[in-house]
């Protein structure tokens, strides 16, 4: 029953986000601030992780290719498939659940603990729209982050493969182009879009409805990370089943 109640409350929160909108000029500034905090602020870590994990994927593939019949272009092919299909959208989203999710939960949770949300409500402001809506809009730019992660992941793979002497540049690029199915990119961006909505709303839910003090803000951030990750993994499974099988 507890879980049902939570799901119901989450759905009611989503409804509350879209009613009684905040003044447009205020909302515009809030959205820009959220884009800066959630999207621009995450680029550094995403670029760093993507480049090096892309490199590791290429090296691992190369080191596991014992059979001399296998063409070297397979390194490029395997890197592309792992990075575009899973690493960039899913793995980066799990990392973002830790970085962006914790930030959202703790910032909204702190506002709850220090009565700032009550202050908004007393002024007649729809606090859900004021706090959560800009985050949802900002996260619509999340697919750009994933596109960068894809590019840098493949670049990392290329660099590692070429500099490590596992394949030539031409072989790697040939592998990248082999059997390319454009729908796989569409699939990757569809799930990225779903993950973006989960990343904006689940941590907001845990922050908005938290009770207690500073200690509970920390606990809410951890819980939010766990549940955001669980829902990302579950929706990843469902979307993959629906779109690729």
């Amino acid at each position, binding site marked *: 029953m507890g879980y049902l109640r939570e799901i119901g409350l989450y759905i009611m929160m989503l409804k509350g986000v879209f009613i009684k909108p*905040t*003044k447009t000029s205020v909302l515009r500034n809030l959205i820009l601030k959220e884009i800066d905090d959630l999207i621009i602020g995450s680029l550094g870590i995403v670029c760093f992780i993507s480049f090096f994990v892309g490199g590791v994927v290429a090296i691992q593939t190369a080191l596991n290719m014992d059979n001399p019949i296998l063409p070297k272009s397979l390194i490029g092919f395997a890197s592309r498939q792992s990075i575009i299909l899973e690493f960039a959208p899913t793995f980066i989203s799990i990392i973002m659940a830790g970085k962006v999710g914790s930030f959202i939960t703790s910032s909204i949770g702190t506002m709850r603990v220090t*009565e*700032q949300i*009550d202050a908004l*409500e*007393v*002024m*007649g402001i729809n606090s859900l729209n004021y706090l959560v809506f800009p985050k949802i809009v900002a996260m619509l730019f999340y697919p750009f982050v994933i596109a960068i992660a894809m590019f840098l992941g493949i670049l990392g793979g290329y660099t590692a493969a070429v500099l490590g002497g596992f394949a030539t540049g031409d072989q790697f690029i040939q592998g990248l182009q082999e059997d390319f199915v454009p729908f796989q990119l569409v699939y990757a961006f569809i799930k990225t879009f779903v993950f973006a909505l989960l990343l904006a709303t689940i941590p907001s839910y845990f922050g908005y409805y938290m009770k207690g003090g500073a200690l509970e803000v920390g606990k809410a951030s951890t819980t939010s990370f766990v549940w955001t990750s669980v829902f990302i993994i579950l929706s990843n499974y469902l979307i993959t089943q629906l779109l690729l099988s």
Partner: protein
Amino acid sequence: MIEVKELKKGFGGDELVLKGISTTFEKGKTNLIIGQSGSGKTVFLKCLLGLFRPTEGKILYDGQAYSELSPENQRTLREQMGMVFQGSALFDSMSVEENIMFPLKMFTKQRKAERRERANEVIKRVNLINANNKLPSEISGGMQKRVAIARAIVNNPKYLFCDEPNSGLDPRTATLIDNLIQEITHEYEITTIINTHDMNSVMEIGEKIVFLQKGHLAWEGSKDTIFRADNDDVTNFVYSSDLFKKVREAVIKDS
């Protein structure tokens, strides 16, 4: 003026938190709600603020019942309310000046220069010096309370609500904040309602005092009559403070 008629509030269980409160809070006066923890003070204040819908009864704001107003008029009425929270509740990502300008930004069509001018008027009124560009975390608790008061009155509210406005402050600053609230109440003719359990505040600014006990209005009067209240609960509450106990003992000894 705020009139409360037979206000009852419960949260789904059998027990009501507020059990039929009727009283009047007059304009231009500092009205205090006092009582022990768990007496229903906060629930009462939240009902007055329109954050809780009464289970039964009515609250009339200058004759208008909040529950009977259209959502548009409820919003208008809400814009006429200012609130000073116990912990100040300042937006910590905004500077002092931005905090004070916030209600103007949300509810008026004023340009930034006009908003700034009005903010500086109230900043001057609450005696905040050289704090405009500081963040709430960079100023003292007393100054934070002044900012909260400035933010609450910047929109010229008709009703001002304060929840434990001097909690966490040293006695001198607490008295200054109490006096500031009272001065503002008289100056702008606001209906001010303060939720407190601080006897110093009661003696300082209690022009009207409402004493709640277990959800009932047990007694009402003023700071001049509270020491003569013929109600044991009030007497116990008043003399639970060591200072007032000693004052009473001294008076009895002298007499």
